[in-house]
């Protein structure tokens, strides 16, 4: 039973029927998130309309962390159980996580300029997110340093697992150190400190970013599986 879900055929069987639905859901959530974020929600009483940048900055940051946690989990499967599908999923997720991290940093800079007066400050939160981008880059460089796709994966997985330590550092950076970056507005243990009219676009955009990740991960995993099949066939010629 354990081997069944490690097979690439299982991935195709599961994702083929759900992919169109995921794609439609992503489009709908983006449309609703953009409408509520740009038009329906009110400006913030302190930040004015600059607050609207948060509706794309915060989900990008959440996803940057989520994808890295996913990468850490897949790396554990690779190192402990040598899971073949986990390997393909990890490699497919890395560029998506890096994209979310770049978007988080750029949109954060574009919010920081009018609010803080600077595009960049060496604040604990910003620096730890930059380290996250370097971890994604390091993983990719290490993986690609080997000519065979399967060879670099163990070294890259080890790096990914060590890098997981950066996730609680990013999360705690705003409370452990005195930073310019504001603390979290949404936590599990308390009620949200933002109004529902502002919470709605944030949740919608977070959903859009999540399903974007799922749809792109499905496509990238299929591409990677096709490329590996071709690699094996070429080797047999």
């Amino acid at each position, binding site marked *: 039973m354990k081997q069944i879900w490690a097979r690439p055929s299982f991935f195709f069987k599961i994702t083929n029927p759900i992919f169109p639905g995921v794609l439609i859901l992503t489009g709908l959530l983006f449309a609703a998130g*953009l409408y509520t974020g*740009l*038009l329906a929600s009110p*400006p913030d009483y302190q930040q*004015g*309309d*600059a607050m*609207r*940048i948060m509706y*794309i*900055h915060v989900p*990008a940051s959440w996803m940057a962390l989520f994808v890295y946690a996913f990468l850490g989990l897949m790396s554990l499967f690779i190192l402990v159980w040598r899971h073949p599908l986990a390997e393909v999923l990890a490699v497919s997720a890395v*560029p*998506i996580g890096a*994209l979310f991290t*770049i*978007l988080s940093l*750029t*949109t954060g800079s*574009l*919010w920081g*300029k*009018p609010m803080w007066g600077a595009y960049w400050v060496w604040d604990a939160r910003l620096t730890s997110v930059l380290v996250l981008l370097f971890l994604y880059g390091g993983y990719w460089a290490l993986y690609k340093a080997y000519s065979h796709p399967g060879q670099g994966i163990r070294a890259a997985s080890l790096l990914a697992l060590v890098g997981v330590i950066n996730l609680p550092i990013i999360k705690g950076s705003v409370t452990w150190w005195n930073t310019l970056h504001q603390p979290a507005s949404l936590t599990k243990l308390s009620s949200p400190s933002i109004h529902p009219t502002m919470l709605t676009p944030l949740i919608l955009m977070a959903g859009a970013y999540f399903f*974007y990740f799922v*749809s*792109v991960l499905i*496509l*990238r995993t*299929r*591409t990677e599986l*096709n*490329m590996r*099949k*071709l690699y094996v*066939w070429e080797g047999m010629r």
Partner: protein
Amino acid sequence: MMLSSPYLIYILAAYGLSLIGLGAFFAWTFFSWKRSSQKSQDFSKDKLEG
């Protein structure tokens, strides 16, 4: 009104960069997948015929 906001340029830049980035990445991923599927099918045909 957002259009008269002094932050309009930052909002447009942030949303523009995000949407272009996500859109371009999706398009690149989609065409890479299409190309790999085509190659895979062509190779299967070659193997069957050869």
